[in-house]
């Protein structure tokens, strides 16, 4: 059983308060991704779990045991670093065997385990090479091999894919996911890349300014963001935010001259506010070309003039202005053919979010 519990973690670096009271319980076997913009404290948190940084306040427990006072070597965790951190003076075999030798495992067993780990990562043919003779992707595999060979109770990944090119990153992502499926060890993964977070995580912990902004399953966070920050961080292209007004009975959102009807089911929870300013959050994929005669609950018609089109092949991103701000809609490849084209869009108000501009919280 390797659950991880963080309670009341604080960390300061001089005047910078990097982690400001984080409480987090990670169950055994879960793949947790800590994600957030740079400087949000995610790497610091990971390093505190590894024992490479000391928390100023709070406790870290791994497998029910408080480990604050333990040096990294006694925590039995394995870590993969952003720059691979392979020992340049050792061959791949010795790099992978390093942790086992440090723990005085018998040399015959080391040979077996290194071969098994190398086999899992398809690097069996590289064991006699030095790190400088490997490509970036191969180095990253060796770094992962060094972590899995130890049978550690907890795996920590610190932005392991950020030095790889896009194609390789996709491959390694699947590989890490497969590894988690096969090993079912508890894994904590730090990244600033929301795609990595969405695709890998059982649970995403989204950090901002040293605090947890929101956590939950990837689609939960994506579909039910608690704040404007979460709504804007997840999704690519990002959610559009448009200044708007909510009518007193919460039946209509007024944007410029357009009136967008709020689905009946959502009115009750909004009605208490009275007429007020709101921010309308629309994801690009929640707008599409409006088909004549279409009648769907919650989909409202909006006439726009397209300013800019960006075809990607399978989809075309079309930019128009709403209440003075540029808004991106994700359309079918041939829905729009040239700039300045007039177009009727169907906006899915069932999935739109309304945000209180004063608190930035989703209503």
């Amino acid at each position, binding site marked *: 059983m390797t659950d991880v519990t963080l309670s009341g973690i604080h960390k300061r670096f001089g005047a910078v308060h990097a982690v400001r009271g984080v409480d987090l319980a990670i169950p055994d076997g879960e793949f947790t991704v800590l994600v957030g913009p740079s400087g949000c404290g995610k790497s610091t948190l990971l390093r505190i779990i590894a024992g490479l940084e000391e928390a100023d306040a709070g406790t870290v427990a791994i497998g029910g045991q408080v480990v604050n006072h333990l040096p990294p070597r006694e925590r039995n965790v394995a870590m993969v670093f952003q720059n691979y951190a392979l020992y*340049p003076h050792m061959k791949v075999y010795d790099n992978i065997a390093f942790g086992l030798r*440090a723990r005085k495992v018998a040399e015959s067993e080391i040979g077996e385990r290194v071969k098994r780990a190398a086999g899992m990562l398809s690097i069996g043919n590289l064991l006699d090479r030095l790190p400088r003779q490997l490509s970036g992707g191969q180095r990253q595999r060796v770094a992962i091999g060094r972590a899995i060979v130890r049978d550690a109770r907890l795996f920590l990944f610190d932005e392991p894919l950020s030095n790889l090119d896009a194609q390789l990153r996709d491959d390694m992502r699947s590989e890490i996911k497969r590894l988690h499926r096969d090993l079912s060890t508890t894994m904590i993964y730090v990244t600033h890349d929301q795609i990595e977070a969405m695709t890998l995580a059982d649970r995403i912990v989204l950090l901002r300014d040293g605090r947890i902004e929101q956590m939950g399953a990837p689609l939960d966070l994506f579909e039910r963001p608690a704040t404007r920050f979460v709504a804007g961080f997840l999704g690519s292209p990002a959610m559009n935010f448009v200044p708007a007004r909510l009518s007193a009975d919460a039946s209509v959102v007024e944007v410029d001259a357009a009136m967008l009807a709020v689905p009946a089911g959502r009115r009750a929870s909004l009605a208490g506010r009275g007429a007020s300013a709101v921010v309308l959050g629309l994801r690009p994929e929640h707008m599409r070309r409006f088909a004549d005669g279409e009648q769907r609950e919650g989909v409202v018609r909006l006439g726009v003039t397209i300013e800019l089109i960006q075809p990607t092949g399978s989809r075309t991103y079309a930019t128009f202005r709403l209440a003075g701000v540029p808004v991106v809609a994700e359309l079918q490849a041939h829905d729009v053919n040239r700039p300045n084209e007039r177009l009727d869009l169907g906006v899915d108000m069932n999935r739109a979010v309304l945000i209180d501009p004063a608190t930035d919280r989703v209503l």
Partner: protein
Amino acid sequence: MTSAIARRRARLALRYAAATIVTATFVFPIYWLFMTSFKTPEEIFASPPQWYPGSIQFQNFNVLFLDGDAIAVWNSLVTAGISTVIAMFLGTLAAYSLARFKTGGDNLAVWILSQRMMPPIAIVFPVFLLYVWLGWVDSFIGLILLYTAFNLPYVIWMMRGYIGDVPLELEESAQVDGCTRWQVLLKVVFPLVRSGLFATAVFTFVFAWNEFIFALVLTRTEIVTYPVQVTRYFGGQSNFWAKIAAMSVLGTLPIFIAVAMMQRYLVRGISMGAVKG
């Protein structure tokens, strides 16, 4: 076309000629030193000079060993060797502390280096008086401690640079992998700064080996080092050229051997700090 090739050849020939002249200028005194050490007194003072001895004979070296003067080379080996080992050990640990734990902030390292800039002559007499009081004049411990003290700042400064170039992640990775701080040093840091370690050790050794002022003032009869011993052959009436040459050869050989053995590391170590990547 042909003239271009001819021009290039001429330039190359000129370059080689210049290199040969410069090399000859530097090598000749060493050649002369070695030749003189093998010559008989008549050959040494022969006019016109003899470019090489008539026969190889070791009489000049024999005399040094029979008179007991050769012990000076041993004395130098002991003082330079032991002080180098101590300075390298203490200095490397101190450098690690400065590089990794930021001991003393940004200024301590510069302050330590500034100790090296003090002219030895400025403190040689206070040190002499102190050593008289301690009973350390003409003793190994006196010279070894002094050389260690003088070399420490250099070792700390150099090793701090080399250690600082080792990526911190490597050490952290080793710690997570199960190493203590000492194991991290032995298995990761030292192997990676090996070239720097050897280069620094050679320079430290050479400094102690060639040191003259302290050895002159602080030794009498017991542990006279080789540079001081050589000066004793310069007399008011005459110079003992045979002894000077033989002693100098004995004193030069250990450095030759050390540098030859370490050449690979020396070149890499000296350039290591300069070029990153």
